[in-house]
């Protein structure tokens, strides 16, 4: 398989693997397009959006304090006091700040591939603000779980995710009680919750194609009992704790293997085996290829990524390098359709700016069906063009593009901006439409809405 020209590769490196071109970026990548991407793979992890950010434990405690305040106000028959409303706003602003910081990093970074790679994993291990307690920990989850391990070992990221308060609350693990445990036997009412166990198997590791039974799910859920979060009254408030008194005693058998009772070690042993399972390599290889290259990815590319994952023992830096080195990833035809977040971020990159306020990005994202930090299910955001390229989605993108262009067009030369944003990917019809536009702002809106800017 032959590679396209250097010019084309430079455009693809920045727009397909990255988050879109900032001014001059495609030109810079031209010397060595692949090297420019490989240079972004960093064993220390992905960049952090914020210096000295609040931890998930701090957020957990803050949310509990707010919920307590709200409960007291309700009990007093006056749930909407100024104090409660202020506390509500303060805690919302924390999550909003996390999201804005992440968007600003995406719009400003020269290392777009590194950031895209982190976003892929954040979506793979989805935690969502659709649950109140989890909502304030989505940002910290990315900081503490995703970004440090983005180019590390998959197993480490899996364990970090499975022991993180955001995941433990989002998928109800923190409250799951072994029916035969001390606490379970005593209460007789509290018991197992299999939500996290099922989603780890189906979404995080081996995938449903691997074939497993309800018994496997239940056994895994039993093994995971005890994985919990410290209450606000405990020493490890808002941090991972293993609670022996709710752990289901006894050996567990799943996927044909028996795990002896080893308290926390039992669940961790299962996670280790799942991370190394060949089905996990296949599942993740397919998802990476689908996310970066094509909705129906070339099987040869999937096979390369799968081998890389297996041979390296799940080292994500190696897998990232394999992706960049695969000739199938450089097919010039751009079939991927940007998600709303990718579209907006790439628009700010086009003008060399960053969103200045939370509302600037979050309001359009809601309209486009991708509310910040709030995927509708643990499966995360869709990677399929058929989902995002909807009639309403395109109309909403047009509305936003017109408004954005009206504000920014004065500082741009639209013809130069088109070349800078798309490089060799710019087609003649789009270049012509931009050149013939009646106004600068019409030209910029056309560029933003052009097929090659919407796709990557």
């Amino acid at each position: 398989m032959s590679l396209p020209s250097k010019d084309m590769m430079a455009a693809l490196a920045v727009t397909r693997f990255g988050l879109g071109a900032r001014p001059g970026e495609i030109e810079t990548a031209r010397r060595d397009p692949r090297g420019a991407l490989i240079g972004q793979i960093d064993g220390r992890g992905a960049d952090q959006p914020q210096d000295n950010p609040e931890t998930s434990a701090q957020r957990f405690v803050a949310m509990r304090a707010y919920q307590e305040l709200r409960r007291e106000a309700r009990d007093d028959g006056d749930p909407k006091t100024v104090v409660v409303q202020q506390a509500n706003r303060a805690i919302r602003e924390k999550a909003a700040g996390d999201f804005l910081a992440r968007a600003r990093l995406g719009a400003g970074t020269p290392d777009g591939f590194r950031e895209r790679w982190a976003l892929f994993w954040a979506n793979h291990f989805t935690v969502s603000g659709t649950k109140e307690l989890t909502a304030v920990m989505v940002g910290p989850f990315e900081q503490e779980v995703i970004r440090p391990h983005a180019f590390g070992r998959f197993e480490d990221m899996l364990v970090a995710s499975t022991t993180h308060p955001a995941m433990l609350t989002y998928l109800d693990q923190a409250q799951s009680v072994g029916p035969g445990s001390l606490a379970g036997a005593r209460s007789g009412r509290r018991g197992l919750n299999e939500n996290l166990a099922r989603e780890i198997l189906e979404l995080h590791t081996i995938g449903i194609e691997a074939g497993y039974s309800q018994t496997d799910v239940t056994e895994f859920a039993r093994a995971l009992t005890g994985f919990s979060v410290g209450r606000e009254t405990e020493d490890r408030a808002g941090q991972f704790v293993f609670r022996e008194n709710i752990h289901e005693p006894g050996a567990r058998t799943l996927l044909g293997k028996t795990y002896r009772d080893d308290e926390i070690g039992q669940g961790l042993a299962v996670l280790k085996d799942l991370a190394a399972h060949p089905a996990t390599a296949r599942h993740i290889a397919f998802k990476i290829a689908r996310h970066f290259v094509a909705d129906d990815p070339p099987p040869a590319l999937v096979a390369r990524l799968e081998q890389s994952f297996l041979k390296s023992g799940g080292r994500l830096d190696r897998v990232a390098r394999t992706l960049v080195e695969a000739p199938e990833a450089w097919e010039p035809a751009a079939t991927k359709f940007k998600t709303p977040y990718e579209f907006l971020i790439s628009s700010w990159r086009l003008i060399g700016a960053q969103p200045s306020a939370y509302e600037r990005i979050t309001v359009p994202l809601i309209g486009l069906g991708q509310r910040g930090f709030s995927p509708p299910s643990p499966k995360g955001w869709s990677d399929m063009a058929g989902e995002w390229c909807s009639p309403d989605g395109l109309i909403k993108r047009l509305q936003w593009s017109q408004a954005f262009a009206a504000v920014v067009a004065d500082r741009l030369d639209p013809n130069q901006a088109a070349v800078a944003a798309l490089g060799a990917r710019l087609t003649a019809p789009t270049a012509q439409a931009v050149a013939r536009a009646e106004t600068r702002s019409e030209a910029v809106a056309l560029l933003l809405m052009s097929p090659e800017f919407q796709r990557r």
Partner: protein
Amino acid sequence: MTDCPMMNRRRVLASAAGLGLSVTFLGRPALADTDSALDKRKLVVVICRGGMDGLSVSPPVGDADYQGLRRGIAYKPEDVLKLDGTFGLHPALTSVHALALQGQARIAPAVATPDRARSHFEAQDVLESGSAQVYATTSGWLNRALEALPASRKAQGLYVGATTPLILRGKVQAASWSPGKGVDETARLPTLLQDLYRTDPLMGPAFARGLETESMAQAAMTAMAPPVGPDGQAAPGMMAPGVGGRGGRDAARKLGATLAGFMVQDGGPRIAAISLDGWDTHAGQAGQINTRLTYLDAVLSGLNTGLGDEWKNTVVVTVTEFGRTARVNGTNGTDHGTASTALVLGGALKPGGIIGDWPGLAQPALFENRDLAPTLDMRSLFKGLLADHMGVDRAALEARVFASSADARAVTGLV
């Protein structure tokens, strides 16, 4: 339905054709109806994503095993809105109950897709694609139904929301819409863009349909003001699960009314789908489901009132990817299960009791000693509605809309 002109025509046809033929005719209302009646028929599918707990939607308070299985989250007979000796409706479903009392709402209490994996995503795929196996096709059954309608009765399909769900994806470009600022379809920019999209197989048709829908939106929106809430956020088409209380209910009602506003227009969509999220109630189920059912009831009520006179031509069906465990779990919630309740509503509906059989909740009757057992394949329900209500040709239904579904025989007599 006792639509007089139609009955007269039917009678005339029957007498003219002789007794033998008339029996066949009357047994097949889809063929007996004239096109002019059929081309007013409307179908709305409400997809409740996350696994809606049927035993809370229509609690079987008369089933001897119900209280024991559900314990702390069971509803008492005096709390539910009574339907019959066995079933009630959840107390939040007041509008649905009012319709049920008029014979315009029924329940199918033990319905399921053919999928048994208890995975949200696999089950939603099967529910929306309408195939017997998961990931077998990339088009949705509502889209194939649009394709199968005869040229004389072509219908438009609409999804209310910013994205296109699988159920409406396929060869026919369905519309999608959610509240926003509005675009002038005659302006220069849209025209230029249509040129640029000419060779793009996805963007071209989607954009063209988006522009058409925009031109309808103004009329549809009269049912809902303001389109965007005062905080600039809680637009009805994209209700966040966090939107609570009265505001959420009003937004949900407006969502239903706006969808109706599209459907009552000349040439407006006659097949529509909407999704409501947030049904995955693994913990603390009672409060969550009360909120979600309040919204669902409001959406259905908005549709009912918004459709006005057209309600008599409409059937609405609410479905979910799977039901939940028959027993309460350890966290006052329920885990992924199998059969659930479908609500079937509409002025076109014939009055009647439950749709499908009730398997009961006795332990041997449970599916894998865990879930409510399915007695009705969801495809049977859909096939029945598409054939009898929308007049989709039966052969096309079996061959293309629901391929390999011979074992799921259409439910007849619903309309």
